[in-house]
């Protein structure tokens, strides 16, 4: 039983605890003290131990009993109400505060289980308990009521309080509103003032600025006067926007105008400074920009100044070149020969710099300047102006290139030409061999200089890639080489022509002093000398030029891209030189070439840029542009030979020219071809594939041959004319009808022979004899004299014979041809001359009417001439001459009223008895 009792007791204690807590909660809720609560708890606590003690049944019985009692007591509640666990129902039944408390059952249980006394006790206990509870309840209701009443009171007082406050609040509101209104009005009033003040403040600021503006001109001017350009610019720059904006009206306009004027002056001054002070250029440019100059014009100015400086360098260099030329005495010293920095240009005292030195110096100056300027430009202006920069740089670069080309090509040529000059003017004789021929025409030093130039130009690559400096370098090289070639050839040509001019003047001078009687052997042989010198000059000159070209071919970089063009160029120039020499020769001889265009200026084919530079170069000597001028002028003077205003070219010169042409044709061209083949192996010389070679040897030779023939014919014609005059004098002058008996040949015959020997003297210097000359004196006259006697007898008989017989007789004699080709031999030339003279004699005789004595006189003359004439001619030509002499005689007989010739023995006798002529 103790086991069942223990949990029941525990349950009972648990229920107590619970009710106590409810009570305290309630009391705390109502704020009542603990005391009333404790009172009820006490019975419970006392009650609890009593109950377990009274109950002692087994738990199962107790459990079963309890519900029975409960159910039996109040109402018979189903056993389902009992916990299935079989917990004792007692505490629940006893716990009146429990929700499941069943008063009926509790009562029944009580009735069942308890004894009467206990019931009584219980009853009493319960009634007391009810009584206390009622009192508790009463007290609680009272207290509750009290509290309610007080709460109601409090609420009532609160309500009355609040009602009173409302009015105050209203009042407060109105007060605050009025305060706000006032504050607003005060604020408004103050705002006007404030605006005014603000405005005044602004005006003050403006006035301050305006003051600055009005002061501006003065300040700028002051700054200008003190040359404080920077400050002036600062001032201007500050005021500029203002002026720009307001400068068009009112009082400011005046200021603006003034300032503008000042600004212009300022910018002018700055630009001047830009020109002069190179180092400050950047600052100056900045200043000018601040002056509001547009960038374009600024760039323009900048580039202008740059160009001016670059040109200054070129001018300086040009002076140097002139000085060099003057040094070599190629030109009169220029009047304004002031080289600022002779030492800088490599002058050592009076000695001008070498080419290399000069080029290096020029490059140094020019390119450095250029590079610096370009860099500066880059720095000053953005990429916008680059195009313009490139343009200007390109222009000045090409100017410089042209100049360099001209001067570099010119300088060595000057040197070369100078040698020629000294060689010529130094020696009185006509020896023309000059040391310059041994030179390589400056090719080597030129190549070195070119190397320098092209390298230097490449330096610009980094700075100005647009210019493609490499190409420019190649261009320069090409230009210079072209120019040099042209110069070389035209220089050679010039020398040849001027040597010829010298020869001509020498011949003219010596012509009067040439005494008619002086033997040709004693005379110096100017023609032979001149020919040797000239042929050597042309041949070796051309050869050495070509050899000089080796320098170029051996240096690959020179001809990198235009090897073929180069070869063509050289050949073309060579051909040009030959042809132009040729036309120079012909012009000198007073002849004009047939079927050939006028020779163009040798250098006209070159780039025009170089041409311009060349013009300036032309002052350094007999300039390349005028190589044709001496020959042209001489041609002009020779052309007037017919009008008597100037004498025709000396015959010796014509012969010299003819011989030169012949020499060039026979040897010069072949030699040149050899050299060409050696210098440019595999190129040119007719092997040039689809294009014809620029040097057409055949054509050149053909023209030379033509010209040689022409000149030779002219030589023969000139001498023939002189001889004709003499011959005509011999037959025209006397009165043939009243002629006296002849006593011997007339002196005029001697004149004819002299004329012939003059021709011989000239021809003998240059032309070779054919081989039979030596043996002729023995055999020739004999054979011919017999023949001559025969013909003269035929002529004698022909006097009476008919024309038919005469013609038949003529059929057997060879006809004398005048248009025949004249060979380059002494006898052929002399025979040609004699032929012309004798023919004139025939013609002259035919115009006369002679008496017997006159005829016989002519017979003697002819006889006298016959022997000496054989000296001049070869067999066949001699025969022709003799035939012409016969014709003279037969013409005389035809024109004779009394055709009676002297018998040959008589002739011999008279000849023997005749006084010797002169």
């Amino acid at each position, binding site marked *: 039983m103790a086991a069942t009792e223990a949990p029941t007791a525990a349950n009972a204690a648990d229920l107590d605890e619970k009710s106590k807590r409810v009570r305290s909660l309630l009391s705390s809720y109502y704020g009542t003290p603990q005391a009333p609560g404790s009172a009820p708890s006490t019975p419970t606590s006392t009650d609890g131990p009593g109950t377990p003690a009274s109950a002692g049944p087994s738990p199962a019985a107790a459990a079963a009993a309890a519900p029975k009692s409960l159910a039996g007591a109040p109402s018979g509640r189903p056993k389902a109400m009992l916990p299935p666990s079989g917990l004792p129902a007692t505490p629940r039944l006893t716990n009146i505060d429990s929700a499941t408390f069943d008063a009926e059952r509790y009562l029944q249980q009580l009735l069942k289980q308890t004894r009467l006394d206990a019931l009584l006790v219980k009853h009493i206990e319960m009634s007391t308990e009810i009584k206390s509870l009622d009192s508790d309840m009463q007290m609680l209701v009272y207290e509750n009521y009290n509290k309610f009443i007080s709460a109601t009171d409090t609420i009532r007082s609160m309500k009355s309080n609040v009602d009173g406050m409302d009015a105050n609040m209203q009042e407060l509101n109105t007060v605050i509103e009025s305060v706000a209104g006032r504050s607003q009005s005060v604020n408004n009033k103050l705002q006007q003032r404030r605006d005014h003040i603000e405005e005044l403040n602004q005006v003050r600021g403006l006035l301050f600025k305006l003051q600055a503006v009005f002061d501006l001109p003065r300040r700028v001017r002051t700054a200008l006067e003190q040359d404080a350009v920077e400050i002036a610019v600062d001032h201007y720059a500050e005021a500029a926007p203002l002026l720009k904006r307001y400068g068009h009206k009112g009082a400011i306009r005046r200021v603006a105008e003034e300032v503008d004027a000042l600004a212009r002056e300022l910018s002018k001054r700055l630009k001047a400074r830009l020109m002069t002070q190179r180092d400050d250029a950047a600052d100056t440019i900045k200043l000018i920009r601040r002056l509001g100059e547009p960038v374009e014009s600024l760039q323009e100015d900048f580039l202008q100044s740059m160009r001016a400086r670059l040109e200054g360098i070129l001018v300086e260099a040009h002076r140097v070149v002139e000085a060099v030329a003057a040094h070599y005495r190629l030109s009169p010293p220029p009047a304004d020969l002031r080289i600022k920095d002779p030492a800088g240009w490599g002058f050592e005292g009076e000695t001008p710099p070498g080419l290399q030195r000069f080029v290096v110096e020029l490059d140094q100056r020019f390119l450095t300047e250029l590079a610096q300027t370009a860099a500066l430009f880059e720095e000053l202006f953005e990429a916008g102006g680059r195009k313009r920069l490139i343009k200007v740089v390109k222009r000045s670069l090409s100017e410089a290139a042209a100049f360099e080309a001209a001067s570099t090509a010119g300088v060595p040529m000057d040197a070369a030409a100078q040698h020629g000059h000294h060689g010529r003017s130094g020696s009185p004789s006509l020896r023309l061999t000059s040391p310059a021929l041994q030179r390589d025409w400056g090719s080597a030093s030129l190549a070195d200089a070119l190397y320098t130039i092209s390298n230097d130009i490449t330096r610009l690559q980094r700075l100005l890639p647009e210019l493609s400096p490499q190409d420019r370098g190649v261009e320069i090289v090409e230009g210079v080489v072209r120019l040099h070639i042209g110069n070389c050839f035209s220089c050679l040509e010039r020398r040849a022509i001027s040597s010829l001019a010298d020869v001509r003047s020498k011949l003219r001078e010596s012509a009067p002093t040439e005494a008619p009687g002086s033997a040709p052997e004693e005379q110096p042989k100017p023609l032979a000398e001149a020919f040797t010198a000239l042929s050597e000059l042309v041949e070796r000159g051309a050869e050495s030029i070509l050899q000089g070209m080796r320098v170029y071919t051996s240096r690959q970089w020179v001809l990198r891209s235009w090897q073929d063009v180069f070869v063509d160029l050289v050949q073309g120039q060579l051909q040009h030189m030959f042809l132009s020499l040729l036309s120079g020769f012909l012009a000198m001889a*007073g*002849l*004009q*070439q*047939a*079927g050939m265009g*006028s020779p163009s200026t040798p250098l006209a084919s070159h780039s025009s840029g170089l041409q311009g530079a060349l013009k300036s170069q032309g002052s350094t000597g007999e300039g390349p542009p005028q190589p044709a001028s001496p020959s042209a002028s001489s*041609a002009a003077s*020779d*052309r*007037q*030979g*017919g*009008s*008597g*205003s100037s004498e*025709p070219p000396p015959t010796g010169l014509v012969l010299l020219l003819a011989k030169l042409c012949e020499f060039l044709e026979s040897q010069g061209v072949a030699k040149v071809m050899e050299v060409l083949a050696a210098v440019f192996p595999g190129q040119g010389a007719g092997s040039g594939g689809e294009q014809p070679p620029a040097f057409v040897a055949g054509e050149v030779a053909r023209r030379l041959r033509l010209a040689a023939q*022409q000149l030779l014919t002219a030589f023969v*014609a000139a001498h023939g*004319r002189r001889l*004709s*005059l003499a011959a005509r004098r011999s037959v025209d002058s006397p009165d043939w*009808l009243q002629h006296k008996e002849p006593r011997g040949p007339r002196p005029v015959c001697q004149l004819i022979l002299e004329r012939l020997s003059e021709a011989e003297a000239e021809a003998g210097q240059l032309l070779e004899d054919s081989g039979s000359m030596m043996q002729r004196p023995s055999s020739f006259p004999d054979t011919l004299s017999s023949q001559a006697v025969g013909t003269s007898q035929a002529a004698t008989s022909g006097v009476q014979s*008919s*024309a*038919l017989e*005469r*013609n038949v007789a*003529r059929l057997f004699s060879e*006809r004398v041809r*005048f*248009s025949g080709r004249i060979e380059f031999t002494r006898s052929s030339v002399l025979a040609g001359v004699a032929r*012309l003279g004798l*023919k*004139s004699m*025939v*013609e002259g005789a*035919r115009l006369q*009417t002679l008496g017997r004595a006159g005829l016989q006189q002519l017979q003697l003359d002819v006889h006298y001439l016959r022997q000496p004439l054989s000296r001049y001619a070869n067999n066949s030509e001699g025969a022709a001459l003799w035939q012409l002499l016969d014709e003279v005689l037969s013409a005389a007989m*035809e*024109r*004779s*009223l009394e*055709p009676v010739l002297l018998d040959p023995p008589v002739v011999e006798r008279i000849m023997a008895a005749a006084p010797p002529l002169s």
Partner: protein
Amino acid sequence: MSEQRSVSYGLKLPARSLAALTGPESSQWAVGTTALREENEILLLDHDPRTASLRPIRSYAHPEEVWAIVPHPSKPTQVATLANSGGRSCARIFTMEPAQSALQPAGELGTGSAAGAPLGSFKALRWHPTAADQLITVSESRLRRWIIRDPSIDMASDASAGDLHQLWTAAWDQHDHSRLLTAGGSNIQAWDLRTMKKSSEIEAAHQMPVRDIDFSRQEPHRCVSGGDDGRICFWDLRHIKAGQPVQAFLAHAHWVWQVRYNPFSDALLLSCSSDGTVGLWHTPSLAAGGSSTPTPATSAATTPRSVLGRDGGDGKVHSFEDHEDSVYAGAWSTSDPTAFASLCYDGRVTVYSVPQQYRSKGK
């Protein structure tokens, strides 16, 4: 030149004078022989181009050697001759009657000298281009103008050639009849016939004596001269002050004895030389007046050029070389523009025709 056609006739005596006869429809020439000791004659030759024949039609005896025959420009039968008889020079006018074999004398020019100055031998005689009764003679030292007044021939005026010159020939301007050119020495003189004064002179027109002058029939102021220097020079008389010919050619190897414009075309000329050749010249650009004003540009052409004008330029287009001796005279036919005759000293007259390509079209 394969189509070159020539036909010849040989006289028995040497001859120097040849003249085309005006009038007849066929081409006729008169040739005068020059034999000092023979009986000379004037032979009329007729050329028929169809049969290519040259045959003598008449011959007239002319006892003295004939140095020049000058047919009258408007009277077909009248002819003037310059003759030499034993060193005596005379100038006479004849009428050639077809029926007779002798010349009918129509007058002789006096050789007397009014001022007593020596006349010298006659060198040339020129009829007035239009006035039928006027003529001019050139002798070595004098220039004389004559007027025919039947029966005598009167000297109208007389001028001295000057001390330095011996006149050789003359040419009467075909357009300006008051102008006459004479050749004296190597100069050419222009005369104003109204005053009989030298109006101008080309000094050293040739390097040697001038042999012949001819005026263009087509173009005023244009003339050509040939000289002993073998050249022929073309002149524009408006520009002779400069003394430079418009064009000059080295034409022959010896003296040029005659140079003649074709009467129908200035572009054709013939030249005769003592080198035995006859040159035919084709000068279309000169005839066109292309270089009539010598400018500096064309003055380069004034030096004698070699004579290769076949490529359309001016120049000698053919040289006829079949004469054996000096050719002293040449004359264009007056009726056939393509035919001309040349006379060699050996008495051989050859008539040539101009090659087809040089004949001017339309004529």
